[in-house]
């Protein structure tokens, strides 16, 4: 699949502060790309460069293979993190304005606005001013404003912040629908809630640098540290020579679950055999770290939780 947008060694600094240090990434056609990173990592800076608002100091950005230029913004939809609309303008006028701003003719703009307002059951609100409608409604208008020109690439800065759960789900569905229509989406977030269910690919940005990227399964697989979970009806013992650490936990349905960090020489096969020898094995699985854990590990420089099982929070392991 060709990349819709692609950066290579993009560098940007504000004065002394480097906000984007040689970042290279690519968003393939029809995929959703997540940009993860803590606040102030440089996500917004990168996104603004993608949206042609600012330009990189060095490095290049390509859109559909061409060097990114202003005209390409016609094929992009962009939703900034902090949102706002013209308060005194009506919903319909506002949307028409944005559609025309993105190069739609008056007629096309009208058709598209009508289509979207109908889809979201907002026709009756079309003539209302933004200041007269609810915040959630305004957020929907905002989202519509960046998709109504049918953009090939949707750039969303923290798309879920400020949405209530119902609207967040709605936006999520709309994003997925955009992808299913073959559009690409790149969005930034510092929250993990939706990342795994939404992203095909992601990268983690930290201190202006890309510290990690890949597809979700790739990244999780890469961070697999040989931790397995074994379940029994009764407590068991493992031969200590084969196992580095283990922790037992009794679940409320009367099962005993062991989380075991294996030696690198161990294959899952070996562990399974040992496990079967130890007792009546009813449950066996590998514990692949969640994106959340990986994010925390990468960003905070903290050890992956599974390495210090003593302090592990069960829900985090089970979450995977």
């Amino acid at each position, binding site marked *: 699949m060709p990349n819709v947008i692609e950066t290579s060694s993009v560098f940007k600094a504000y004065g002394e502060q480097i906000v984007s240090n040689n970042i290279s990434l690519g968003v393939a056609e029809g995929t959703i790309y997540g940009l993860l990173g803590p606040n102030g990592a440089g996500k917004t800076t990168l996104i603004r460069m993608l949206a042609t608002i600012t330009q990189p100091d060095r490095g290049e950005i390509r859109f559909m293979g061409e060097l990114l230029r202003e005209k390409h913004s016609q094929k992009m939809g962009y939703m*900034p993190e902090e949102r706002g609309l013209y308060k005194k303008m009506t919903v319909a006028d506002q949307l028409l304005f944005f559609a025309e701003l993105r190069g739609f003719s008056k007629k096309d703009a009208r058709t598209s606005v009508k289509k979207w307002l109908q889809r979201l059951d907002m026709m009756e609100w079309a003539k209302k001013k933004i200041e007269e409608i609810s915040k959630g409604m305004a957020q929907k208008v905002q989202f519509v404003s960046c998709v109504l020109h049918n953009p090939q690439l949707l750039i969303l800065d923290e798309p879920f912040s400020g949405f209530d759960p119902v609207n967040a789900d709605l936006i999520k569905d709309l994003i997925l629908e955009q992808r299913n229509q073959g559009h690409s989406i790149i969005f930034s977030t510092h929250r993990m809630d939706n990342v795994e269910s939404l992203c095909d690919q992601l990268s983690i940005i930290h201190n202006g640098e890309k510290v990690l990227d890949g597809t979700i399964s790739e990244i999780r697989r890469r961070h697999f540290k040989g931790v397995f979970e074994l379940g029994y009806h009764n407590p068991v013992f493992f031969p200590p020579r084969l196992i580095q650490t283990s922790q037992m936990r009794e679940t409320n349905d009367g099962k005993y679950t062991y989380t075991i960090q294996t030696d690198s020489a161990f294959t899952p096969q070996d562990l399974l055999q040992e496990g079967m020898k130890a007792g009546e094995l009813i449950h066996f699985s590998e514990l692949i770290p969640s994106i959340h854990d990986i994010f925390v590990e990468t960003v905070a420089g903290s050890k992956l939780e599974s390495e210090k099982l003593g302090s592990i929070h069960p829900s985090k392991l089970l979450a995977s």
Partner: protein
Amino acid sequence: MTFLGPILMVGFYASAIYIATKGSDDKRIKNVYVSQMIPIINDTLLSNSIGNNPTKTKHIETESGLLNTRLLLAPSNKDSAIEHVKQGTVDGWINIGDCDFSTIDSTNYYTLQTPSMIEMDILNKWVQNRAIQNAYSKLGLRESQIDSLKSKGSIITKELSKDGNISDSSSDLKSGIGFGLAFLVYIFIFIYGSMVMRSAMEEKTNRIVEIIVSSVKPFHLMMGKILGVAAVGLTQFIAWIVLAIALLSGISYFGFGQQKIEPLTTSNMPGTMGNTLSAQQFESMQSTVDAHSLMALLGNLPYFQILAIFLLFFIGGYLLYSSFFAAIGAAVNESSDVQQFMFPISLPLVFGFIIAQSVALKSPHGTLAKIFSMFPLTSPVVMVVRAPFGVPLSEIVLSASILFASFFLMVWVSGRIYRIGILSYGKKPTWKDLWKWIR
């Protein structure tokens, strides 16, 4: 509002000026003693009743009727006269020291509260008048003879044009019109300029600007704003001019006699604004220009030139100042930060307006007028004041070129501030930051 706005504006200022000139709503009659003097001719006004019995009175006649004053004959005893003033029985005492009244040098006015300039002026004139009448009567002139000596006329200016035409002209009218137009330029640069600023600020605080800037260059966005508001302004002006013409032709169609055309003159008169234009001067303007000759004078004004200069310099001034305003709007994060930048930028305009006042009255062709009608930050106001007096074409061209050249320079500078400012959030920018953005 587009069409109603200007009418409201005119109504607002006209009523303010009306109140200021007609204004002292002090209906109370002031009682003023006048000390005895030897023969005051024609004096039905002062009774012979001496003492504390102020019965027979007469109002001082003033041209404007601004003062509501009753003159009473003062008691002969100086101490009791002063005592009455102290007690508030009378408001003041004009003590004419020279009984002969050959001079008024030794005349004093005793009062508890110092009267206003205008009041003092009127009292002064009255005493002077009396002294002159006194002097005439000493020469043996009769009352009717004295009256005939008073000249009723005033000088009428005849303006010669190069091709030999002679036309009536009025400096008062020209000052009034010039000043009125300068006032419009001054006010509307502020109104439209801050419109541009508010719009830039709204988009910045709403973050809409990020979406727009991803499709449009910041410079284009800024220029669009400036030109868009300019179009609004011009539409308003044109609507206004059409309205004015309609009104004027309506007035001349129905015609009117000798009464003064107050609405027209007042709307152009600076009255309240001008500290150099006192109500007296205002009055004198009005009185010399009565409706009879006013139409003729109005007909003689170089309308086309005035209008052309007005529009040219209004547009130029607006463009120059609004590019400052746009940069401010883009630089600040909230309206409370605006003041810091607004103040130094509005200073030259205010200064120009002050210069315009003295130019309009004193020397529309003087050096001061020439210098400040060239300087781009003041020329929009000062040049417009000079317009009715006739400005050489070469000066207009030079000044307009300077004005528009500085607009192009400023818009470039502002564009750079705008480009960065519009996407910079957080701390309030300093002048140093702005300088960094420009470079």
